[in-house]
C-alpha cells in the first residue's frame, strides 16, 4: 500500500511538472510529404530532411513553438489537417484560390518556376525556352503555351495528382496530350525514365533534384518556365481557417526570416538559387 501511494505521488508530481512545462511552449505538429526533394524527403535512415524541415525549425524557434514534423501522403494531406491530425502543412504547397476555400495560408516563404522535364533524347527537348508569369502577363504566357501545343499532340504528360502542376496540365493540354496523374513525383520520374510518359510537368526545383540524382542523367528541363496564375502564388504554410493566432505567429516568423536573410541562406543551401519571395 505504501508503495502504491508513493508511486501515485510521483506520478502526480511528474504530471504537474509536464503541465507547467507545456504551459510555456505551444506544441505544433507540422505535416510534410517526405517525398519531394529537396523541399522535404526521407533520408536512408528513415528521417525527414529538406529545406522545409530546416525552415520549419527556424520559424518555430522564432515563434517559440515546440514543433514536431511528421510525414503524410500528399493525397490525404489537406483532409487530415482539417480533421486535426496535425496543425500545419509545410509540403511545397502553393497558395491557390481553390485551396483557400478549405485552408488558410500564411504569407509565402518561397517560390519558383514550373516547367517540363523530359528525356534528353526526346523531341520535346528542343522546345523553345522563355520566362512567363501567368499572374502578371497572362496573355503572352498563353500565347507561348499555344505555340507548344503542336509539339505535344499525341504525347503523354505525367503530373502529380491534386497539384498546381496537374491543374496547369489539365487546363492547357487536355485534349491535346494524354495526361496521367501519379501519386508522387517519384512515380512520374520513374515512368519518364521508363519511357512511359514523354514529359512531366513539375517545379524546376524538384526537377533539378531528380536530374542531379542517381537516375537523372538522361533527363533535362525543357521548354519555358512558368509561374503564377494557376501555378499558385508561392509556397506557404497551410493552416486551418480558424487558427488565426497560429497564422499570425507564423507570418511574423516568416517576415523576420526574410528580413534577416535566413530564407536566402536556406534556399541557396538547398536549391542553389535564392528563392526568397519578392513582395
Amino acid at each position, binding site marked *: 500500500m505504501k508503495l502504491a501511494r508513493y508511486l501515485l505521488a510521483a506520478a502526480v508530481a511528474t504530471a504537474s511538472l509536464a503541465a507547467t512545462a507545456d504551459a510555456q511552449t505551444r506544441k505544433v505538429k507540422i505535416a510534410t510529404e517526405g517525398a519531394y526533394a529537396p523541399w522535404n524527403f526521407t533520408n536512408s*535512415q*528513415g528521417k525527414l530532411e529538406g529545406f522545409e524541415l530546416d525552415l520549419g525549425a527556424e520559424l518555430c524557434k522564432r515563434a517559440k513553438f515546440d514543433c514536431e514534423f511528421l*510525414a*503524410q501522403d500528399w493525397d*490525404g494531406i489537406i483532409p487530415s489537417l482539417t*480533421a*486535426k491530425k496535425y496543425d500545419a502543412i509545410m509540403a511545397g504547397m502553393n497558395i491557390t484560390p481553390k485551396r483557400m476555400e478549405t485552408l488558410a495560408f500564411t504569407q509565402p516563404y518561397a517560390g519558383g518556376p514550373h516547367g517540363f522535364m523530359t528525356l534528353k533524347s526526346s523531341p520535346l527537348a528542343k522546345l523553345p525556352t522563355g520566362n512567363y508569369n501567368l499572374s502578371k502577363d497572362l496573355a503572352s504566357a498563353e500565347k507561348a503555351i499555344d505555340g507548344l501545343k503542336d509539339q505535344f499532340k499525341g504525347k503523354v504528360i505525367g503530373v502529380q495528382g491534386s497539384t498546381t502542376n496537374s491543374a496547369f496540365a489539365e487546363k492547357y493540354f487536355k485534349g491535346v496530350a494524354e495526361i496521367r496523374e501519379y501519386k508522387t513525383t*517519384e512515380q512520374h520520374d*520513374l515512368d519518364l525514365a521508363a519511357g512511359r510518359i514523354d514529359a512531366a510537368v513539375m517545379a524546376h526545383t524538384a526537377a533539378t533534384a531528380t536530374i542531379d540524382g542517381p537516375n537523372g542523367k538522361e533527363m533535362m528541363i525543357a521548354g519555358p518556365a512558368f509561374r503564377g496564375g494557376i501555378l499558385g502564388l508561392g509556397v506557404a504554410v497551410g493552416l486551418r481557417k480558424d487558427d488565426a493566432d497560429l497564422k499570425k505567429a507564423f507570418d511574423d516568423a516568416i517576415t523576420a526570416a526574410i528580413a534577416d536573410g535566413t530564407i536566402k541562406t536556406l534556399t541557396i543551401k538547398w536549391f542553389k538559387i535564392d528563392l526568397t519571395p519578392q513582395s
Partner: protein
Amino acid sequence: MPTGAKSYFELMQWGPNGWLDEMVFATGLTLIVALTGFLLGLVFGGIAAAGRMSGHRLLERVSITYTTILRGVPDLLVIYLFYFGGSAIVTAIGNKLGYDGFIGVPGFVAGTLAIGLVSGAYQSEVIRGSFLAMPSGEIEAARAFGMSGLTLVRRIVGPQVLRYAVPGLGNIWQLVLKEAALVAVVGLAVHWAGIKIGDVVLIHETRFSDLLRQAHVAAGSTRQPFPFYITCAAFYLALTTLSTWLFRRAEAWARRGMRGS
C-alpha cells in the same frame, strides 16, 4: 541492368546497408494488420449473422444491407472511405452524440477497420451457413436440459459453429492476408519509438510500413524494383502457405470425432 546495380544479395542484407530487416519487420506489420482486421471481421460477422437470424425484420434488413454492400463494393474504395473520410465520419458521429471536439482516426485504425468491415460481411455468411448446418436437435436437447443464454452458446452453439466454419474462415483469412497489401496504397505506417534504456538504444526508432509499401519504397530508393517486388511476393507466398498448413491442421482438429471426415 544498369551498370552499378547491386546484386540481389547486396540489396538484401540485414542492417543499415541492406533492406532485409526492413522487409522482415514490414512482414510483421502486415501480419498484425491482417490479424486485427480478421478478428474485427469475426466480431462484425458474428453480430451481422446474429442479426440476420434474429427474426427481427429491421435487424435482418440492416444485416442484409451491410453484407450486400460490403461484398459488392471494391475493398480499395472502402479503404479510401475510411482513410480519407474516417475522421470526418467519426467526428460527425461524435458530434451527433454531443461531443464537440474532433476525433482523429489514425491510419492503422482506418485500415484495419476497413478490412474488418469487408471481411465481416463475408464471415457473416460463413457463420450463418455453419449455424444452419448444425443439427437443430442439439439446441433442442440442450434446452431440454435447462441450458440457456451464454452457457448454451459457450457449450453447444459455439463449438459446433466453429467446427463447420473453419474451412470457410480459412478461405476468408487468406483473403484478408492478401487484402492487407492494399493498405500500401494509403501509406499506412506505424511509428515505433524504439526501445531505450537510459541513453542506450536497443532498437532504434523507426517507421514501419507494410510489406508492399516497404518494397515500393526500397524499389524507388535503389531504382531496382524487380528484386524487391519478387521478395515481397515470396514473403506473401510464405505467409499464405503457412496459413494453409495451419488451417488444415485446425480443420482436422475441429472435425475430430466427427463421422466421415
